């Protein structure tokens, strides 16, 4: 039976909402037998190892009623649901990563049965192994630099506009404010650049993320730099110490370090080799 036929058949027999599909969290290798004991993923379901040769995908059952194509499409629009799934996904990934080189899957990678998951390992064994080699013994650290643009314009500059025409003085004040904001931004960008250069020295690889909005992150200031670094375990202490020094010395900007993360930003670009491979 072809995969398509199998898929069609499984989808047909799995129409009832309480049928399960397999949600994949991460792929790892040489996973110790007891590593997953009691580890629960989405919906509180125990996760299971799906193994081929030395590789293991950690996956757990989730109800088709929520994770089928139509349901998932709708559910993903719900930020509260998305947050819950994203945090649980990351918790499981983090737990697996404690035991060795781990590559997290993108959110909502789903298979109809464990046999299909095993096929992925079988066909992608060489590429997955190479990608695991690349992150083995390394962790990801996130570093963000926030510019503080809220500083008030120095009073001397603001009142220097001793013009009797209020319209002009208002505009001058606005321009001064804008200029001071621009200068603050430029200086933060420069500081961010220096931080990035210094930390890159201790990292094997770096990957820039898009700057974050304060609305979602809840952080003060404007995000000028958002980078993930892949750091060898042996360099971790030096990396953190340097980040700490840079943070203490920072003026007009704030440096934030997050991690250690599983190497999300340094996985395989696209195993399916589809046209929508991310950059």
């Amino acid at each position, binding site marked *: 039976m072809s995969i398509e036929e199998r898929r069609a058949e*499984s989808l047909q027999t799995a129409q009832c909402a309480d049928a399960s*599909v397999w949600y*994949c969290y991460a792929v790892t290798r040489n996973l110790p037998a007891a590593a997953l004991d009691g580890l629960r993923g989405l919906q509180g379901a125990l996760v299971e190892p799906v193994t081929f040769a030395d590789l293991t995908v950690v996956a757990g059952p989730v109800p088709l009623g929520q*994770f089928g*194509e139509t349901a998932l499409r709708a559910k*993903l*629009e719900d*930020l509260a649901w998305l*947050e819950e799934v*994203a*945090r649980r996904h*990351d*918790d499981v*990934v*983090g737990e697996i*990563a*404690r*035991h060795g080189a*781990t590559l*997290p*899957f993108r*959110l909502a990678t*789903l*298979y109809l049965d464990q046999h*299909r998951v095993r096929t*992925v390992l079988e066909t992608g064994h060489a590429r997955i192994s190479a990608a695991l080699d690349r992150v083995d013994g390394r*962790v990801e*650290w996130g570093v963000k630099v926030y510019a503080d*643009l809220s500083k008030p314009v120095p009073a001397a500059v603001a009142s220097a506009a001793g013009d009797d*025409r209020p*319209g*002009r003085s208002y*505009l001058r004040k606005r321009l001064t404010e804008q200029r001071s904001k621009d200068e603050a*931004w430029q200086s933060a*960008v420069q500081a961010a650049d220096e931080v990035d250069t210094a930390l890159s020295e201790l990292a094997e690889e770096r990957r820039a*993320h*898009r700057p*974050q*909005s*304060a*609305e*979602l*992150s*809840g952080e003060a200031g404007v995000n000028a730099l958002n980078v993930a670094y892949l*750091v060898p375990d042996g360099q*971790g202490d030096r990396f*953190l110490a340097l*980040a700490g020094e840079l943070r203490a010395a920072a003026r007009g900007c704030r440096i*934030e*370090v*997050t991690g*250690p*993360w*599983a190497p*999300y930003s340094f*996985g*395989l670009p696209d*195993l399916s080799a589809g046209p*929508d491979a*991310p950059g």
Partner: protein
Amino acid sequence: MTEPAGPVGGRAATRGAPSGANLADILERVLDKGIVIAGDIQINLLDIELLTIKLRLLVASVDRAKEMGIDWWEHDPSLTSKPANGELADENRRLKEKVAELEGRQGRS
């Protein structure tokens, strides 16, 4: 969040999100990074229109930033293909016109 979750001590310290990691940190990783494999249930996360719109608003709030007057990326040659000074020059021209207009009004009153 300004302090790392803990000292890195090799593999034992390897974790997913540090406790209290902000949602943006997690979403940018689980939605945008990680291994992409065509699953049996085909959802291209980036195809979900509303999700994309929301994430644009929340994770990389370009429009919101513009509202707040933050549009530096439009001048940053590494982030845009636009000429670096185009927008600034426009803004300058607009401001000059505004000044002239206001001065004219002031003169008349």
